[in-house]
């Protein structure tokens, strides 16, 4: 089972990296969250029965962990008025300015909004987003419209 788990997570790890950057500001916090998500995925893996796509399951566990997991409160709240310097998990790829700007804008949304827009940007359908988040399909639509407007304002600042 361990081999199957490692292959699955390795193949889908982009999801985890994206969720880490979506919910944590600093590289250190992102690495820490990555560790926690992989651990939670490993613990939940035996209960995955294949009723949903594996990527949906990974998204659900990763988003849930990012939101709920216990963490020390930061003394200083970082609320960037301008786009911060590139700040990401270690890797060989260079992160484009647009990508950094996207995450900067997404981190200005609340936790629930971030989960909805992440799934939308990943091309999940409304019923799929509703199943993962627990919102109704109509509420997903309403929220997405609002989030898109918010993002437009943030990105045009």
């Amino acid at each position, binding site marked *: 089972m*361990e081999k199957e788990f*490692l292959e699955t997570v390795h193949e889908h790890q982009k999801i985890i990296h994206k969720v880490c950057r979506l919910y944590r500001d600093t590289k250190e916090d992102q690495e820490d969250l990555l560790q926690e998500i992989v651990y*939670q995925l*490993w613990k939940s893996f035996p209960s995955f029965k294949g009723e949903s796509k594996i990527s949906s399951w990974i998204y659900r566990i990763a988003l849930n962990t990012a*939101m709920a997991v216990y963490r020390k409160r930061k003394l200083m709240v970082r609320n960037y008025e301008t786009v911060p310097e590139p700040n990401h*998990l270690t890797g060989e790829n260079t992160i484009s300015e647009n990508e950094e700007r*996207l995450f900067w804008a997404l981190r200005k949304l609340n936790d*629930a909004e971030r989960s909805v827009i992440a799934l939308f940007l990943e091309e999940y359908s409304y019923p799929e987003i509703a199943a993962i988040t627990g919102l109704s399909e109509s509420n997903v639509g309403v929220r997405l419209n609002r989030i898109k407007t918010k993002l437009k304002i943030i990105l045009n600042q």
Partner: protein
Amino acid sequence: MELNDLKSNWQNAGGASKSESDLQKMTKIAGSSAMQRLRKKLVIESIALLMFSLVYYDWFDGDKKPVYANVLLLSGVLLYILNDVIGYIAISNPISGLNLKLSIQNYLQRVRHLFMFSLIISVLYGISLLVFFSSVIHFTKEKGLLLAGLIATLSLMYFLSFRIWNSWLANLRRQAKDFESE
């Protein structure tokens, strides 16, 4: 940036890569650094309290104290350890629902109960210590001041602990509210 740009930027992101052996290591280490610190605190506290319960009788004249004070102290210590263990298990399992909304609501409920339980146990533990150490004392002014100092220290610890719990609960409440339909 247009919507399609946002989508393509999102889908191309997350390029950093961990090897399978790195991922395997992550399955062996229980959770984030905050969780690891919590676990370390739990282990150290439990060992220290167990050691204390083994030596207190000789070191602090347990034979000269009333039986009720001994029973109260041991119960307080055991409850405190139990509270630590239950707390750690509850906190380290944040996923408990078929979707994000349910899971956050369940977790909030669990942390809320844990907070109340922890507060009650901590107060009982503090009372058991105070009762044990003051049970056969003939109070003088100095000893009274010492007791007042101990009570003040315990109260400060409760206050600091309350603030940490409260800030975490506030965060979870906010998240649960974010998922409520408008």
